[in-house]
């Protein structure tokens, strides 16, 4: 559903993303892990159509993002790490506008808005201005907008940031249900427990390159210890825990 082949992004002499290849199948939740600055967000923004790749190919639902951007984007939902929401619109207006962007028929929009607000527990805030929302509420509203048009694939950049435990639980349930219905989800996250709990497959990116990819168990085996938690595996693969340096500094 999301097929990325040899994706490259260069900023001058710096290669931020270096020949990244990913394949997220329908119904799969694919965790995209890596330390800060590894190239996760850059990759996701290229797939979302916000950044122009230097090289490589991106297919969404079989449509090439470079040659058929409208069709590719119509199949995609995007949940950014720092969501933009029109502060002076109400939650209902924001979802209505978003539905219109994706060509939802006017008659169906109302019903869909109600569904999304109910799903993300924002019904009673429908007519409130977004500027009065907390960060977690804005995050849930953006998720609602991403699912408005029933996308075939969803890109999520750091989904749990700013969510309370109830919100986090809700999002996990929604993602799982979406995957069960055949939606492909590519999710970048720092929260390794979330990745371990939710993802069918994970890819670990370091300095722009994928250094490990497979199911959580396969990645554990790559690190040499199949019993370890994903956090320990991640630290081992991405360059140690840094504890020695911490001791030296302290």
């Amino acid at each position, binding site marked *: 559903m999301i097929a990325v082949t040899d994706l490259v992004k260069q900023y001058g002499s710096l290669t931020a993303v270096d020949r990244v290849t990913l394949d997220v199948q329908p119904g799969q939740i694919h965790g995209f892990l890596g330390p800060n600055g590894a190239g996760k967000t850059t990759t996701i923004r290229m797939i*979302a159509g*916000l950044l122009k790749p230097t090289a490589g190919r991106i297919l969404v639902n079989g449509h090439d993002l470079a040659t058929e951007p409208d069709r*590719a984007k119509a199949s995609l939902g995007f949940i950014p790490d720092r969501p*933009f929401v029109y502060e*002076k619109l109400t939650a209902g207006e924001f979802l209505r506008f978003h539905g219109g962007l994706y060509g939802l028929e006017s008659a169906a929009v109302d019903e869909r808005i109600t569904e999304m607000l109910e799903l993300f527990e924002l019904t009673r805030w429908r007519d409130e*201005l977004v500027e009065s929302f907390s960060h977690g509420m804005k995050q849930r509203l953006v998720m609602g907008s991403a699912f408005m048009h*029933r996308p075939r694939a969803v890109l999520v950049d750091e989904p749990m940031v700013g969510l309370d435990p109830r919100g986090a639980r809700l999002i996990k349930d929604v993602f799982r*249900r979406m995957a069960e219905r055949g939606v492909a989800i590519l999710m970048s996250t720092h929260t390794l427990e979330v990745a371990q709990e939710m993802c069918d497959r994970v890819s670990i990116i370091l300095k722009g390159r994928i250094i490990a990819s497979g199911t959580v168990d396969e990645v554990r085996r790559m690190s040499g210890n199949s019993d370890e938690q994903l956090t320990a595996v991640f630290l081992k693969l991405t360059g140690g825990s840094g504890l020695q340096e911490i001791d030296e500094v302290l």
Partner: protein
Amino acid sequence: MGAEGVREVHGVGEVRPFPYLLLPSLWASRNRITRRERGDLTRAMLFGSIGLAVIGVIGWGAYWVTSQLEFYAELGDYLIRLGLSWLFLTFLSFLAFSSIVTSLSTFFLSDDLRLLLVAPIDRRRLFHARFARTLGQAGWMVVVFLTPVLAGIGIARSAPLVFYVAAVMAVVPFVMIPVALGSLITLGLVNVFPARRAREVLMLMGLVFATSLVLLLRFIQPERLLRVESMPEVTAFFSTLQSPITPLLPSFWAGETLFASLQGGWDPLHALALWTTALATVAIAAGLFEQWHFAGFSKSQEARKVRFARWPLIDWAVTRLPLGPVRRQLLVKDLKVFLRDVSQWSQLLLLLALVLVYLYNFRVLDLERIPGMGRVLKNLYAFLNLGMAGFVMATVAVRFVFPLVSSEGAAFWIIRTAPIKMRDFLWSKFWTGLVPVLLLSECLTIVGNEFLGVDPFLKRVAAVTIVFMTFALVGLATGLGARYPRFAADNATQVAGSYGGVAFMILAVLFVIVTIALVGWPSSVYLAQQLRVAPMSTSRAVMMNACFGAAAILSIATFWLGMRSGVQALEEMDRTPS
């Protein structure tokens, strides 16, 4: 969740025309009106009244000038024709520059682009929506100014209905042309220059624009008009205005179209030239944006290097100032943030250009040619200069000093949680604002009075008065800025237009008027006494000194109360933005 969670997506569904993309702005405006915040209504009424008054004055001015010109028969017609052409030329240059700046924001830097670009929106639709937005943002001021001018001319000449139709038909394409060209220049800049350095290039363009404005004024030498005793010079002046390239500019076409309709006729050639050029430039812009916009937007997402904006000189200079480490770091931070934000200091360039034009006007004023009045007029102009410097200072203060506290934005928690006294924080803001404003206002006053050749006594009075006024207005702006902060504002202009900003402007204008009155009366008494060459009575001398003293006390009180109010407000602040 609906059972049809993965219903097949066919194409991109119902495609809505481009105005759909403008809906959020319209809805947001409606919500602003229906859900007013504290002070919104007062502000709207105040700004509305001021705006209407300004529009009325402009309209009346245009009406009066046009009525006067009717006495000069053909020469009057000629002057109206030339005036229209020059009016449009001035707006053309303004629009060309403002559309470059606006389109950088609307096409490449706006936050909502991240939302729109991930949606399946046809690029041409996106272009049209953003172009309409740029057109509105860059052109509204020109339209608001032109409307009363053209209405005044039309009423004075009892123009037929066709004039008003022609006005709409000419102004719309006239605004479209520079906005389309400006958007194209921005597209080129963003694609050629890496990342956000296009902003720095715009800065340079701002400087070029300001300089060319000054040079243009210098070149045409409007002061020659003052020497009306020589008719050939007037003719020569007008021939200067008609350069060979003028007929090739849209401003000329718009002027000609309107002049023809003012006479009851119709000028299809120039109207057609306007519309075909407007549609062609928009079509070309649409095509090129379709091709290059995404590449430019992608580049504008890249982080900006600080290579050209590191400003090591600031660190060097500030370390040599007798300041504690806290104030020193606050000052370095404020200066660097200001200088790296092009939207902030590029406005200073325009201000500089206006100041140069202002001073230039004083230099070319030839008051000696009015027999017996030269000395009186010069001294009168000295007070006019002082008042103008005060108003300029108030405008600069509301735009650059008042938003200083608000500019901390969501990062204000850093200050709140640091072991810094709010007094130190606000004083740091005060000094940051004071130095440039003092330099500007002193320069305006001293150079202006020097050009005028006013009495030495008045020169000294003005120079000292302006120091007091600067302390007062900067203190008031800093204090009220702290009392009415807008941490969530997107930019400094929004902060300046807030409730507190308007309150500051009202107080500042009152302050300037009272100060000028307090300083003006004793100065005029002194000068009159000098003319009569008679000794001054003791009571007069006491009154004079009392007035000067009252002016000084007013300044000190304004400064002290403003700052105290600001410090108190910061210390009592019970919520911090996050």
